[in-house]
């Protein structure tokens, strides 16, 4: 028991998490690779549904450089396997500034309630 403890102290790598060991060796850990995979899948789904395009169009901080389409790619090495995702962002015209916040409408005063008026309504 004591020897085992000493042995671990003598070999610090045995007590480090696998991720730390992997970083020391200059390779991504299994957990990091898994996170990369998840990220790549999320980005691919976002691109597929057009969500990313919508975000780019709505965020004035992101500029689209092409009038037709913008593309980028990301890849993750998975120990021999390469997961490459090409993101194609559909071109959308820049969204105009709109105010979609709810409005507070004024209430007619009592004196105005008796004014003759006509109505507009859906018909």
């Amino acid at each position, binding site marked *: 028991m004591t020897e085992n403890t000493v042995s671990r102290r003598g070999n610090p790598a045995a007590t480090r998490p696998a991720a730390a060991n992997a970083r020391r060796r200059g390779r991504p850990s299994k957990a990091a690779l898994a996170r990369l995979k998840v990220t790549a899948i999320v980005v691919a789904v976002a691109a597929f549904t057009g969500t990313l395009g919508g975000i780019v169009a709505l965020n004035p901080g992101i500029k689209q450089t092409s009038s037709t389409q913008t593309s980028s790619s990301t890849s993750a090495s998975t120990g021999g396997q390469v997961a490459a995702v090409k993101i194609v962002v559909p071109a959308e015209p820049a*969204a*105009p*500034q*709109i*105010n*979609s*916040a*709810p*409005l507070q*409408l*004024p209430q*007619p005063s009592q004196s*105005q309630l008796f*004014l*003759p*008026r*006509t*109505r*507009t*309504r*859906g*018909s």
Partner: protein
Amino acid sequence: MLVTCSFQCMTTGIELFLDAEDAGAAEKALAEAERFFFQVEARFSRFRVDSELSQLNAASGKTSEVSPDLAELVGLALAAAQMSGGIFDPTIIDKLETAGYDQSIELVRARETARPAGGAQSAHGNAVSGAQPISGKNGAFGWDSPRWAAIRLDPQRRTVSLPEGVRLDLGGVGKGWAADRAAELLRPLGAGLVNAGGDLRAWGDEPCAGPAQGWLVAVDDPTRPGTDVVWLRVQERAAATSSVTGRRWSGGHHLIDPRTGRPADTDLLSVTALAPTTTGAEVAAKVALILGRDRGLAWLADRPGVEALMVGADGNYYGTRGISGVWL
């Protein structure tokens, strides 16, 4: 003196207001405007088999010579379709009929309360119970193709060519156009307002409006008809409201989304638009309502001179940036 006139026409209530010095002349002009509305209904209703529009529709696949008024209406409908990217589509009669709007709205509602009605005749000659609406996919044009884009209008020769199987519904611009034309008739006599079932055109100042200029117009609450949402000051322009709660029956409502071919699934209950003309306001309100809040506001933001107030299905009100300058 303010002279008023109200009557039922185009399956809705029409109100005419004219503030003229000569009351006799005003009454005569209002009577002429009233006749005009009935003429418009007789000539351009899709529910009348003998209307000029029904005759044009019956001649689809051919080139027809039409009256100057019908040529103008067709031109307006096609311009509205183009301006809205096809969201306003005057060729979706078959979808309206499939949704159940195959007769005037009174008859549709009467049929619902007295089923089975059995074989009422619609304008295009099909018995309602056995109607075989033209499917875009079976016709020369797929539903995905904008059928309105294939309509040919020659304004010089006043001819219209409808592709085989395509029929026009001018209900989306007809009332507004009639209100604009009636306003032209009445304008020389004094300030006035023409209200065609909520699609209205105002000019001059209302005599009872006090220091306020223009005409006071209440926006109806789509959830509580007869209750005011807000008052607008309409001055030298037009207003129109489109709602999913108005012409409604068990199958849905009359605003078809051409992207789905079904009654629009929108997050809005109504849109009131203000524009230089009633036709423009009518089209803007319909398009914004079908597009929904965010896309509708974005579309409206690109239309100078157009303001809008939206009543959301979430109970909130939304609008264009300039709408607060119009309400009272």
